């Protein structure tokens, strides 16, 4: 397989290149962007920013809550031992444990989802350039079809790249 990409020094340049690619009829999903830091100002940064992360976190919290409620109650009833004139299932203290495990559930759910959705840990793809972490912004296309190739290259150069790179 092969890929064509170019490196840009400013987000605007990168954005221009991206727009060019779209104009050249490249499907949005095929355009790859990589940067050493998050950008908020440019449209390209807003690709698939929509996320369920918040709801999943809440779900995780709920799972933690249910589990801990079950755990405390079950264990206290498993071998009921009287202490200090307290009820066998003592909700006041149990609430503390329930709270902690609820939060733990939320945190773990969040992190897991992050890893899954962000494909971490994963292998570094062919289309990558160490310059990215030096502040350059990479814009490119994987396996371009021969038909679109010229238009594509034109668009990338138009973005203001020094050179075209292939990998």
């Amino acid at each position, binding site marked *: 397989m092969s890929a064509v990409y170019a490196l840009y020094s400013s987000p605007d340049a990168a954005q221009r290149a991206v727009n060019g690619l779209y104009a050249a009829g490249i499907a949005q999903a095929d355009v790859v962007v990589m940067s050493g830091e998050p950008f908020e100002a440019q449209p390209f940064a807003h690709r698939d920013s929509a996320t369920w992360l918040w709801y999943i976190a809440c779900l995780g919290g709920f799972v933690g809550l249910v589990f801990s409620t079950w755990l405390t109650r079950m264990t206290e009833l498993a071998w009921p*031992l*009287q*202490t*200090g*004139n*307290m009820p066998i299932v*003592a909700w006041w*203290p149990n609430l503390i444990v329930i709270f902690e495990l609820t939060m733990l559930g939320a945190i773990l759910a969040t992190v897991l989802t992050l890893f899954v959705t962000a494909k971490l840990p994963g292998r570094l793809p062919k289309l990558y350039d160490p310059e990215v972490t030096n502040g350059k912004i990479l814009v490119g296309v994987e396996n371009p079809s021969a038909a679109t190739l010229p238009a594509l290259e034109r668009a990338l150069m138009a973005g203001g790249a020094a050179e075209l790179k292939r990998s």
Partner: protein
Amino acid sequence: MAHKWGMAVDLDTCTGCGACVTACHAENNIPTVGDEQAARGRAMHWLRVERYWEGDFPDVRLKFRPVMCQQCDAAPCEPVCPTYASHHTAEGLNAQVYNRCIGTRYCANACPYNVRFFDFFNPQWPKPLHLQLNPDVSIREVGVMEKCTFCVQRISAASIDAKAEKRELKDGDIKPACVQSCSARAMVFGDLNDPESEVSRLSRSPRGGKLLEDVGTLPKVTYLARQTQV
């Protein structure tokens, strides 16, 4: 009906002679820690006779008060134990399961009466002192908490005998070591659920009161106040 073991201590007849203290050591295999450890505040006396001075010479008085585990119904030492080593039995005793104890010493802090003791080292009985050990009472290893049990070994022994003889436990069948040794008969042990038992009778006495009642621990030891005349 389940028993509810309790004790009454008559401070008017207690002479503070300390026989109960030694009797407790003899019955419960309580180690003597030696002078060095005693100096570091590690002496173990499940039962201690507190003494408090009042007034100044020549109008000075001395108060004695034997303090052992009060076997509280709402014992602060119980819930704080993470491993249930300290818990409440069906007969209202404040039990300590040595094998469950991991030695957080939290129970000792929570106890307002300071009647819980910690094994700082493995107990030692230079031979043949070990021959005097009571086989009915387990030896506590280093790192666990121990305390007065109301001589639970005697309670169960008496209950087993009663069962064997197919009869109910009578009041006075059970005497913890301290009660038995007391020559002035200042201590009485028995079933608080039996309104006729001597200990119940004494607990109802107008002289009766509980130690640190306002801490809300519902102790099962009643102290009968000392009287004065002349």
